[in-house]
């Protein structure tokens, strides 16, 4: 990054010490500008890995605010601390042996019964998820709703660091999504067909050919690649296009939800 002289400097406190940093930096960039080397509490720098939770205050509010350091711009008067890790210890479970019942999530995470619906978790979530609502869904055994509402969780753990009931929200959401994925949505027939093809060795020759290629030959092959066309013609498949929406995917339930036909 180039910092030119005409970028105004702002004052902030990093972990209790005063610094002047250029405005317009992310918190993470400001920490590095100030001379710190981040060996923990930094990861993808793209808002996906959840490794860089930050706690901060503004000089005009008594509140504690939370954010991801890589996604939030510094502000004048900010006082912040990096929170590289929120301890997560849960009772181990074996998904293969779980029998899904309405109280399965409660049995694995009995502390969710302590939720007082204060909604602090929701207000702390940098993803803007309805965290308290997915805990409440888990509490009443609505695994599907818990899975849907927690779909975009990046496990940064800020919710859990702020919860007065010490709930491990992101672990609850993860188990809800696992149970929903394993027991509720129907298995994709394409997947089992593809696994059978793989096990029959249908792709072994192609893979062997690729393994034997030089980097230059691979590059040529890569540049010549073609995508499968979708059935109705026109656009090619994209794994990410549909989900990389700034809008909460819960609003797009019809896209991500598979109803079981009965």
């Amino acid at each position: 990054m180039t910092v030119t002289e005409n970028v105004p400097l702002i004052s902030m406190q990093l972990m209790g010490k005063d610094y002047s940093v250029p405005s317009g930096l992310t918190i993470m960039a400001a920490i590095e500008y100030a001379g710190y080397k981040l060996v923990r509490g930094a990861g993808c720098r793209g808002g996906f890995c959840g490794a860089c939770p930050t706690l901060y205050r503004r000089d005009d509010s008594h509140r504690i605010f939370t954010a991801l350091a890589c996604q939030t711009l510094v502000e004048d008067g900010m006082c912040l601390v990096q929170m590289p890790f929120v301890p997560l210890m849960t009772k181990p479970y074996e998904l293969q042996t779980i029998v899904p019942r309405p109280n399965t999530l409660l049995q694995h995470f009995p502390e969710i019964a302590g939720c007082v619906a204060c909604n602090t978790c929701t207000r702390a979530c940098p993803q803007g998820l309805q965290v308290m609502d997915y805990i409440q869904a888990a509490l009443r055994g609505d695994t599907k709703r818990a899975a849907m509402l927690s779909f975009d969780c990046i496990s940064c753990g800020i919710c859990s660091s702020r919860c007065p009931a010490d709930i491990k929200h992101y672990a609850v959401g993860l188990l809800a999504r696992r149970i929903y994925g394993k027991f509720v949505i129907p298995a994709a027939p394409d997947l089992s067909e593809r696994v059978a093809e793989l096990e029959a060795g249908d792709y072994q020759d192609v893979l062997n050919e690729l393994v034997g290629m030089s980097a230059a030959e691979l590059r040529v092959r890569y540049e010549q690649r073609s995508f499968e066309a979708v059935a109705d013609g026109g656009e090619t498949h994209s794994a990410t296009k549909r989900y990389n929406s700034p809008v909460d995917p819960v609003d797009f339930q019809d896209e991500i939800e598979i109803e079981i036909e009965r």
Partner: protein
Amino acid sequence: MQIAYYPGCTIKASASQHEGAALAVLRALGVELREMEEWNCCGVVHSLTSDNLIRHMAPVRVFARLREQGANEVATLCDMCFNTLARANIHARQQPEQIVAMSVTSGGELSYDGGASVQHMLQILRDRVGFAKIRARVRRPLRGLRVYPYYGCKLLRPSEVGIDDPETPAVLRDLMQALGATVVEGSLQTQCCGAYHVVDHDEIVAERVAATTAQASVGGAEAIVLSCPLCHYNFDTLQPASDTALPVFYYTQLMGIAFGLEPGQLGLEEQQIALLPLLQQHNLIHAKGDLG
């Protein structure tokens, strides 16, 4: 008639038979229960510490969301939810400054003006539908079935939220008589079942359940009928296994039987103490194949 419906966690997680039966019975009476969206736990036990505001946030939030969703009234099946919500609502009306304090500590996202109310489903049945209409809907009267209505605490106490006379309640008696059943009454109908002592002192609960069922049996009752899922759990699981154990019905299940509804909707097999033998004995359902 349409009414917003607050199920509560217990109904969803461990008393689904009560809900299934209630939805079917109310539909038969022309009442549509519309489940609230994104409701949270009621808070379970009403906090008597009136200034511990975080303990009052859960029930207040239920009312706040009810208002956001455009309703002023919500019905619930669970006695505990009813009691907690009703008491929190009184609190909210009497001390609006506490709601303001909650709103401030929650970043301004919780506001409630005290303008909503909660009704127990038995109030809806008694005061809106009416026992005459219920009697008229009966297709298979519970003739000869002798039931002991058990009220417990949460429907009746404290009296500012109770739905009936705290000493001599009548709502379950009148409902059962409308269905054609014979009612056996006794002094222990309004005694607490022991409630959450089932967790740490289940001998207290077992003793109370034994005394109440003994009184019911001496009076000739063949079954207990009640409303509260916690009372149901205690009566269903803490009677010693024997031929003389009294089956425990939710009032909605008996309404469904009397209305001649499909027994498969009524969750009749989800109890510890079997309900079917008694119903078969009175010819209220047929032996096999009648469970849908």
